[in-house]
Structure formats: structure tokens, C-alpha cells
């Protein structure tokens, strides 16, 4: 029995279906070709200026030398990066490397050179630096004065920095508030220190700035200890200790433990105070000075 011949419309449908199948088979190949062509035709990334790449490399080496405690070499690298940035009038790089060089001088005990470096940067009005970088330079100056024990000058420069770093969007806002809290503590104004440390903590938590969060907590605890509220100092210290342990910062772990010992001693827990002080001494014994 012969099968019935397909009608013209059936033939068209089958033919169309077979063409569709062929297109589907070709589709991956076509997509691959299109992808390769699109990739080849896509604009290459903006080539980085070779001089800036070199400056970035020196900057990175400077940071590595600084972490190793080799301040002389770090200064050399930062000076070279600065020279390149100056030769290309790269104002952002000039600011970054000047501030870093000042820090390297400070760590090497060359405070006058650190001041000179920052003064040169802050005096170069022709650079038209971004306000945030000027704020960073002023903050570095304030930290430098604080390191020298010139607290009035430190406060003055902190205020100047804050003038350009008022909103929470400023990267140094939390650090600045912490510094102001520390200066308030140095003036024995524990109330102001507590308020400023609280503001700093809020800003730092927003920015998830781990080290500065721990600093804010430690400052709060120190303010509480000043106010003889020893029990209230323990909670922030617990959190600060946990954070510092997570970040692996031996010097701050030691500070946290020492403050915990102080808080416990103030609260009359002599045994616990002794335990924390022993732990602080143990950490101090094991860590190297650079840490």
C-alpha cells in the first residue's frame, strides 16, 4: 500500500524545519565568530603611561621596604617615584608619594625632614591637589606633631584637615575623629574623647575600616577608664581585641590586653588584671619592635 504523497504545504514546512535545524547547528559557530570579532574590535584598555607605571612600581617597592622596616630604602623608592611624578606633573602621585615619604622620614626619626616634605607639598598651590589629598597631608602633619608631643599644633592641623574632610564620604574622616579623641584624652577631657570616639566608630563602621574601628573602640575604653567606669570599658576592649587579632596586629593586641588589665584592676578583679597583664607582657616579649 503506497503512502499518500505529501502536500505542497507539508513539503514547505519540512523544508523550513530542516533549514531551521541547519541554522541551529551553525548557531554556536556563528556566535563564536561574532564573539571573536567583537573581542578583536573592542577598544583596548587605555594604555598606562609608562612613566606612571614606573612611578607606581617604585611606590609599591617603597611600601614593601617600609613594611620590612627598611626606612632608608623606602625613602629612596618614594623619592624616585616622586621625581617621576614631578617630571610628569602628576599631582595625585606627587601628593601620595610626598605623604608616604614624610611617613618614611618620621619612622626613621627624621621629623624635620618629614615636616619639610609635607610643607613643600602643602605650599605647592600650583599643583591644584584634590581636597581629599590636601586633607590627608594635613592629617599626616597633625599625626607628626602628635608624635612629637606638640599637642596644640597637632590639634591645629587636625582642624585644618577637618575643614576639607567634613562629610562621611571623606576617606580620612574616621581617622581624623579618632585623632581628635586621642588629643582630647591627652587633655584629660574624657567626656569629649568619648563623644568623638563614638562618632569615629560610627563613621569607621560605615566604611568597614577594621583597624580604625578597633582604634575607636580602644579610645572609648580608655575614656571610660579615665571616667572610672571600668566595667563599661571591657566590652569595647573585647571587640577591639577580637578585631586586632583578626588583623594580626601584635602591638595593638598588647595595648588591648594592657588596657583590659587596667580595667579589671580598676574594677577590683585583681586576679583577672594579673592574667591580662601577663598576657600583654607575653605578647610584648614575642613581638619584634617593627610590629
Amino acid at each position: 500500500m503506497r503512502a499518500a504523497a505529501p502536500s505542497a504545504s507539508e513539503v514547505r514546512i519540512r523544508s523550513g524545519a530542516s533549514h531551521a535545524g541547519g541554522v541551529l547547528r551553525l548557531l554556536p559557530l556563528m556566535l563564536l565568530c561574532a564573539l571573536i570579532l567583537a573581542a578583536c574590535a573592542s577598544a583596548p584598555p587605555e594604555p598606562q603611561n609608562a612613566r606612571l607605571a614606573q612611578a607606581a612600581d617604585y611606590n609599591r617597592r617603597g611600601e614593601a621596604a617600609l613594611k620590612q622596616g627598611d626606612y632608608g630604602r623606602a625613602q629612596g623608592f618614594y623619592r624616585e617615584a616622586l621625581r617621576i611624578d614631578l617630571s610628569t606633573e602628576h599631582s595625585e602621585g606627587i601628593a601620595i608619594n610626598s605623604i608616604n615619604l614624610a611617613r618614611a622620614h618620621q619612622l626613621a626619626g627624621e621629623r624635620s625632614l618629614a615636616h619639610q616634605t609635607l610643607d613643600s607639598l602643602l605650599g605647592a598651590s600650583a599643583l591644584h591637589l584634590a581636597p581629599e589629598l590636601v586633607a590627608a597631608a594635613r592629617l599626616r602633619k597633625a599625626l607628626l606633631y602628635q608624635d612629637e608631643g606638640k599637642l596644640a599644633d597637632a590639634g591645629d592641623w587636625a582642624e585644618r584637615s577637618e575643614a576639607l574632610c567634613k562629610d562621611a564620604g571623606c576617606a580620612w574622616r574616621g581617622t581624623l575623629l579618632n585623632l581628635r579623641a586621642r588629643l582630647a584624652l591627652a587633655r584629660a577631657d574624657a567626656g569629649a574623647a568619648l563623644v568623638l570616639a563614638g562618632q569615629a566608630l560610627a563613621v569607621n563602621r560605615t566604611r568597614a575600616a577594621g583597624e580604625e574601628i578597633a582604634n575607636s573602640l580602644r579610645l572609648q575604653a580608655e575614656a571610660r577608664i579615665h571616667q572610672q567606669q571600668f566595667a563599661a570599658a571591657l566590652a569595647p576592649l573585647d571587640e577591639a581585641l577580637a578585631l586586632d587579632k583578626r588583623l594580626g596586629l601584635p602591638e595593638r593586641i598588647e595595648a588591648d590586653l594592657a588596657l583590659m588589665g587596667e580595667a579589671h584592676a580598676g574594677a577590683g578583679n585583681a586576679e583577672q588584671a594579673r592574667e591580662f597583664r601577663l598576657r600583654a607582657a607575653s605578647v610584648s616579649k614575642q613581638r619584634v619592635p617593627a610590629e
Partner: protein
Amino acid sequence: MDVDISPQRKLRRSVLWFALTALLLLLALIGGLAWKQGAFAKTTQLYFFAKTAYGMSKGMAVKFSGFRIGSVEEVSLEPNGSVKVRMVIGNAYTHFISKDSKARLGKEGLIGASIIEIEPGESGARQVADNDVLAFARLRDFNDLAQDLVNQIQPILTDVKMITEFINDPDNDLRQTIKNVNRASAALVETTQEIRHLVQSSDQRVGAVSAQVGTLLQHAGERLDQVGASLKTLDEKVPGLMLKADKTLENLQAATANVKKITDESVEQVPGILRDGKAAAEDAREIVGGAKKAWPVRNFVTPQQETLIPLDSHESGSAQRK
């Protein structure tokens, strides 16, 4: 049977157009890349002739004031034994090169890669044209410096040997002087003995004083005897010492010759090894650099940025605690 095949044709036509467009785009891309690599840049050929091809190779850089302006395209040996070097210079740089400019074979640093450095000529001379020939000079390299050093040390060693031989000669003035001193010392001993006898036989009134003088003179005589003995010993030992010094100097000269030989061998090998190492490192850097710029690697590589050391409110406090 009525079969409509127009969709199949349409599909073929579409695929054909697609493939054609892709091919055209690919050709345009290749053309663009070739243009960017300077394949269509206009160049000028320049030549120079050298006595030897040592240190020269195809592809080496041609530089002007430290900038790469072209490359060596061909190094060939002429029938007369000289070496013909063909350079290709970008037309953008030919206005720096005058007809009396000189090509010099030098190195980038003491152990850097060899390059051809174009030294500018007089300002009034005409600019070079295609197929012009430049004068050539070879700069002094590490081998030449080492040879100069050896040439300077050699006469010094010869002088030292001559001085030693002069001292060792038994007829020279120095030796004669030592012998005369020896003889004079012996005569002095005899004189002292005579004085001693004379004093012993002198007036008894100055007995005590004479005895003291005698003792003193006796001591002087003893000392002079010792001096004489010492000089005699010296006279015996000096030739041996001089012989030893001479041998030592000969050994030193032989050692210097060995050092020169080693230096000569090193000079041939070490710079080559260092050059190869540097070239390999540069190649690797170029390959990595190229790979970083190529798709898709470039999408995964972020360019380095200068970063600020974090400002830390705790840092100064910690310094105070310390």
C-alpha cells in the same frame, strides 16, 4: 511538485554575507595592526662598512641620542673581506642624520646589548638620502679596557724585575757599599783594641776613670763586634733573599699572565652570557607585556596605581608608648 526553495537561498545568502563581512573585518584588523606596528611606515636605507662583524647582528637597534630610530636589516660579507651593514631608518628621523654623521658600535652600559649609535655630523652638511654610506667607528669595549690595563701593568712588572736584578748583582754599588761598611767595622774593632791597650798602660793616676773608660770602651767594642757580625750575616743572607724575591716576582709575573689569559677568555664569554641573559629577560618582559595587552588577558590585569600608606590614628600613640 511545487517546492519553494527561496528560504534556503536566503539562508545561504545570509551566511555568505556574514562570512564576507567577518573576513573583511579580519583583514581590516590585520591591516590596522600592521599599520600600528609600522609595516607601512616609510624608511630610508643607510649603509656602513666595518672591518669585522664582531658584535653586530641583524635586528640590533640603531639609536640617536638614546632613542631608537631604526634597526640593522642585513650584515653581509663583501668580496674584499669587509663587512657591509644595511640599516633601515624611519623617515621621521632622517633629518637628524647628515651625510657626515658617523655610525658607532657601542653598548648600552658596560655590559648592555650592542647598539649602533648615530653620531651627528656638522650642522652644515646635507641630510642623508636613501642608500647613503656613513663612516663607521667601533667604540672601546670591555675587552679593549682589559687589554689596556694589562699593557699598563706589564712595563711596571718589567721595571720591578730590573730593580731586583740590579740589587742582586754582586758588582753593583749597593753591594760594594755594604762590603765597605763591613771592612770599616772590622778596622774599627782593631782600633778599639789598640785604644784599650793604650789606656791600660797609661798613667795610674787616672786609674779609676781609666777603668770606667776601659769598661765603656769594652762595651763599645762588644757592640761593634756585634755590628760587624750582623753585617756579615746580612752580607751572607742578602743574596739568598734577593734570589727568593726574584723568584717571587717571576711567580707573580706568571700569575699575572694566567690572570690575563683568564680575563681574555672571560671577556669573550661573560659579556655574551650577560647580553644573552639581558636579552632573554627583555624578551620575556616584552612577551608578558604583550600578553597583558592582548584580549582576554588584558581584562584580568589591572594597571598598578600609586597608593597612599594608610593614615592610622594609633601610630603616633604607639610611638609615645614606646
